[in-house]
């Protein structure tokens, strides 16, 4: 019985689950579409894998068929949600809202999506509308927020933006985008100066470890419409390392030895010892 218990223990130790390491976590990139042309009529936005790019759609990503608009009836100032897509080449097309997918697009562009990278594909301009690909940042330095300015106003050819006293963009030309800057998180006043002497203050609350875009649009009465868009969000406080979520009750055991079996060998040992004691005692008396 002792031997069989020992064998069981050996079998239990031998069965060790092997960690299955697959590829990296950044198996997708992200794309959102934006209609930021003040003269463009409402559009449907299409995102489709480029022919021959070898782009394969993983089962968890949006099926990017050119017949299904990713953004429908998008008016000036509309930004879609981000879509996770497989890395590879894509074609973005904007067609008049309600037009068939086969209609000639008003504007198209090519986009190379890298894993772990996010993009905004925006319609920019007035007389000659074109699509422009902006690289979006997901990460900000630890504990900070990242923020940039997208100038898409016709009324105001340039814009300057302050966050508190920190300059985010100085005389940024339209259409265009500033680089991201790191700022302190929390409630802040966004001071937007468009035309000379036209200044407005927008209150905004920026979360740590998150990124934002400030979008300057045409507004009523020559006062710009200011959108603050959340690009990416993370933790308000970044945890350190992993998590201790186990006590070992199921660790390294063969499937045949279910939970609760660990006390059984101990009982066997006690019983075997007791039995051995009896035999030894009796034998000792007999042989004396």
């Amino acid at each position, binding site marked *: 019985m002792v031997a069989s218990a020992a064998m069981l223990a050996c079998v239990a130790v031998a069965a*060790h689950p092997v*960690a*299955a*390491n*697959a*590829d*990296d*976590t*950044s198996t*997708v990139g*992200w794309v959102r579409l934006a209609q930021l042309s003040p003269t463009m009529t409402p559009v449907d936005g299409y995102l489709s894998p480029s022919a021959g790019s070898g782009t394969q759609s993983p*089962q*968890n*990503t*949006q*099926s990017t068929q050119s017949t299904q608009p990713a953004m429908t009836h998008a008016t000036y100032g509309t930004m879609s*949600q*981000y879509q996770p897509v497989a890395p590879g080449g894509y074609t973005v097309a904007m067609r008049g809202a309600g037009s068939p997918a086969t209609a000639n697009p008003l504007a198209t562009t090519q986009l190379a999506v890298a894993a772990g990278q996010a993009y905004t594909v925006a319609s920019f301009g007035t007389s000659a509308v074109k699509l422009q690909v902006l690289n*979006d940042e*997901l*990460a*900000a330095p630890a504990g900070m927020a990242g923020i940039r300015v997208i100038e898409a106003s016709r009324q105001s050819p340039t814009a300057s933006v302050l966050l508190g006293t920190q300059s985010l963009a100085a005389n940024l030309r339209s259409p265009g985008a500033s680089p991201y800057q790191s700022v302190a998180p929390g409630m802040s006043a966004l001071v937007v100066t468009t035309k000379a002497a036209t200044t407005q203050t927008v209150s905004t609350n920026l979360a740590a*470890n*998150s*990124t934002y875009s400030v979008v300057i649009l045409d507004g009523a009465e020559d006062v710009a419409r200011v959108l603050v868009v*959340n*690009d*990416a*969000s*993370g*933790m*308000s*406080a*970044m*945890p*350190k*390392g*992993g*998590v*201790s*979520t*186990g*006590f*070992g*009750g*199921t*660790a*390294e055991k063969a499937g045949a030895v279910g*939970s*609760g079996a660990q*006390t059984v060998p101990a*009982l066997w040992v*006690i*019983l075997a010892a*007791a*039995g051995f*004691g*009896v035999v030894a005692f*009796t034998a000792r*008396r007999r042989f004396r």
Partner: protein
Amino acid sequence: MKWQPKHARPHQWFMKDGRPSLGRVAAAALGVAAVVGVTAAIARGATTSTPAAKPPAPVVVPIASPTGDDASASSSPTADARPVSIDIPVINVHTTLQTLGLDGSGALQPPTNLTEAGWYTGSPVPGQVGPAVIAGHVDSFNGPAVFFDVKQLNPGDRITVGLSSGQNVTFQVMLVKHYPKTDFPTADVYGARPDPELRLITCGGAFADGHYLDNIVVYATLAK
């Protein structure tokens, strides 16, 4: 023991007619074994009946839609909603959620309840932009805990999180990864994301010095 004539031998419990009685000794041995066994059983029972380890009746939260079609409708839950339940039908996980914070060292606190998972309050509300973090124990000292079968998840498997607002958000598994705790990829797991995502975290791998050496992380994106 010095030899003595039969009549002079001290009478002991295991003696009968001046000789050791096999029957009496065997009976005593069995009795001792029985006491030890019962004691062990009671100790085991006591362990499993501590509040943390006792498996209460699982709280079954109704899943709003088997197809998960409500995910798109709930893609922008109200900001003050909180996740209250998680359902992973493929591994039969149906549990309420507690809230988790960080401990003194800055690490994510594990749930206090072995049969309940927990949502990290510093992560986004599930369904909002960014990675919502839900952790659960893989086991107790004796047997499986709430996230024991999380390692069995495969890409495409669905996870539904119930919110205090009554909405449900459905995710689908993208990746299941094993990491040594000494080399935990904080940026991959907790880093900002531009779409609503979910992370499930539990323990795995080898067990040494009272700790599992690995974490298992499930990466999920909003179900389409």
